[in-house]
């Protein structure tokens, strides 16, 4: 048996719920979310950290769940697209995506929403250019991005304006 087959107990919080999962060394966070926790909202698009469909937040920072090893998130706080009830910013972004029609096939949507949420957590009033740049790590093949950018701008307009922590 290789080292990858050895399991380690990893504890982290997902969408407010404490989780304890036995993971192997090579197991990704994406795999744990989808296979062990049955949180299938986070998608596997390219599985190499480029397309952004698997974006989740780890202590508020966007990460690629397909590249992050599950062991590494031990003790961390993970937010996925299923966590709208526990996170007010995420919930506002979700509602804005629905209202602006920023969703077509939907496969990029969860990653896109998490990237947008991370941006708005860090910077509640980004300008249009900042939104474009921030979302350029998430590929969408359907929409041409127009309504996605509108959605993020709408969400930003609904969030209370406050100075960024960073």
């Amino acid at each position: 048996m290789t080292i990858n087959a050895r399991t380690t107990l990893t504890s982290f919080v997902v969408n407010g719920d404490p989780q304890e999962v036995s993971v192997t060394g090579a197991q990704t966070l994406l795999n744990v979310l989808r296979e062990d926790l049955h949180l299938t909202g986070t998608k596997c698009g390219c599985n190499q950290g480029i397309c952004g469909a698997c974006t989740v937040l780890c202590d508020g920072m966007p990460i690629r769940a397909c590249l992050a090893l599950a062991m590494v998130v031990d003790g961390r706080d993970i937010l996925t697209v299923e966590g709208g009830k526990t996170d007010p910013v995420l919930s506002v972004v979700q509602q804005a995506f629905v209202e602006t029609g920023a969703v077509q096939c939907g496969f990029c949507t969860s990653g896109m929403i998490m990237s947008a949420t991370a941006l708005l957590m860090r910077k509640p009033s980004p300008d249009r250019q900042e939104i474009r740049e921030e979302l350029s790590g998430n590929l969408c093949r359907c929409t041409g991005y127009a309504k996605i950018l509108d959605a993020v701008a709408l969400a930003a307009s609904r969030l209370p304006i406050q100075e960024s922590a960073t």
Partner: protein
Amino acid sequence: MTTHTPNLKAVKIAGGVATNQRHDSAHKHVTGTAVYIDDMPEPAGLLHVGLGLSNVTHGTLKKVDLSAVRAAPGVVDVLTYADVPGENDVSPSGMHDDPVFAEGKVQFHGQPIFAVVARTREEARRAARLAKIEYGELPAVTSIWDLDPEKDKQVTTPLTLTRGDAAAAIAAAPRRLKGRMKLGGQDHFYLEGQVSLAVPGEDDEVLVYCSTQGPSETQHLVSHVLGVPSHAVTVEVRRMGGGFGGKETQANQCAAIAAIAAKKHGRAVKVRLDRDEDMTATGKRHDFAIDYEVGFDEEGRILGVDFMFALNAGFSADLSGPVGDRALFHCDNAYFYPAVHAKSAPLYTNTVSNTAFRGFGGPQGMVGAERVIEEVAFAVGKDPLEIRKLNFYDAIGVAGERNLTPYHQKVEDNIIHRIVAELEESVSYARRRREIAAFNANSRFVKRGIALTPVKFGISFTKTESNQAGALVHVYADGSVHMNHGGTEMGQGLHLKVAQVVAEEFQIDLDRVKITATTTAKVPNTAPTAASSGADLNGMAAQDAARQIRKRLTDFAAEKYQVPVDQVVFLPNRVRVGNQEISFDALVKQAYLNRIQLSAAGFYKTPKIHWDRSKGRGHAFYYYAYGAACSEVSIDTLTGEYVVERADILHDVGRSLNPAIDLGQIEGGFIQGMGWLTTEELWWDGKGRLRTHAPSTYKIPLASDRPKIFNVALTDWSEAYEPTIHRSKAVGEPPLPLGISVLQALSDAVASVADHKISPRLDAPATPERVLMAVERLKAQAAKA
């Protein structure tokens, strides 16, 4: 979502046709609760598949030693062609040239040779690498560029379109020119890759959940591969994470492999391709080599044109015949050719078999037409837009002679003049053209360019039998409605539009109509959701089903309340019978109690169309969709890098069923077309290996690539010339070639370095490298002149 009480006093229903409605799954997509095939709860004992792909581009399989694969941890079985119970073929054309597993030889790098069935996906994939295969390598052809379209091997019969004597017209023309254009292919890059989950049933039965645009075709091919009748195979799909043509035929191989393994082992089996495998082993948009010769007068009016559209079919026919046909059908774009000769050549190469992709050859034909226009414009020293307008087909209502296509169909509904005129005005084309010239005169390195290009796109499958559709509508005793039809949902909002049609017929709120997964068990023998036809065909079929039920309800109410049938009127959420109103739900309940059938199968076939391929004549398209785009770009002449500064689109969808959804299709289609012609470059190395098989190397547009200013509008005045579903028009493919305006704008910017005296002949994709090379070439030519 479905618990509200219908408003019995409403003036209009909530969610009828011609209204903005949100995508029916939007609330599920944003919360991660919309289920794709890989998200479904997995059946106990599920097995996974990894594919063994060819490592050479063309060769015989001298020895295939899979013993190490079989011995690897977790491996349950290894499947090869010998395990295929029926035909080892998933050819959609019936040409028997698309093996499920290579047998005896491989014809492209990445062709599936075997499939590993294992407990986990990782085990299957890891084991697949342990095969020891001895190949007898053969000479390989990996590009069409140096092939002879008349003599080299073709995968299927080419098409020729002829009207008038093009050779004579060109020879007699005051001006003549000819040239050749290289036009690249395109990977679909649907975000959800190919995936199938097969669940074995009793006897010969199998249920396949497949991310497919053509469930009936998938069913047909799975039954063919299993050697069982179609009635044993059920194919179901609720939604796809994007399709774009890439899941029209390309879904079938995974479905077939999953079904073979599931039946052999009596366990559910999932096949989900990895992104690299998906991009390597499944077909793409065809790259073309376009030869053109054109004769024209001093004004720039085209007198005769001759085209050769050579397309890279790859190793098998797949849909390359019809794709080449559609290129020819669109080699006129919106222009009248007094004499034309156009030929396709679907050439065999040792690359993956190319397939359907949004536009299906049409955009390639139009790029050829626009190249010719551009060449003529440079030859006579005019703005290409002037040449475009000079050569348009006659407008609707004009009793002229300039309205016959190369396939002898009369263009009856042409509204391109008005669209182009309105767009030209709204974008201030003439003023911006002057401003750009002034800018370029004063800017040493950064140059701007602008182009306004039209689109005319033919709507109908050219394969006549595909222009049919079915639907199944049930009204339950509580008045709620279950809707099913043959179309598939890949994000385009088809199910929503069809549900709007059904809601409109019954005059009930949209949320009383349940959208359900497409399945071959409910609606049989359907066309793939392709050719932009989804709403046209399935909307009509669903309307037919709903009308049958409505008529039964009407007859029932008339009889029960003893009123004439014309006094039974469906109002929002209620029915007026004589002088009284009764809720829809109550009437349905009464009808049920009186044993009225509340379920109906609907059907539609497109009228008027016919096509004789051997003669190259017919009424191939029911109607045309029109549009125009104006793009402005700036290029850096030192690096070739560019920015799309602004794009404006005016597009015709007839009387839109759902303007919000249609605008999304147009925006997305334009960006996808722009990507195809600019940054998306497929690159095969000298050994025939695709080296751009992941998003790290294959560049689809990003949010930051979209035009800085992007205005999209619908022609709010247009309606379909033919009685289509509520006079709407198809919207899937027609917006994609709007992206040609970006290529032409780049070309215009490049031309500025030689004072617009030399035709830039900018090939596609116009990557920054290619733009830079064109700039250098023009500078050198200008210096020599």
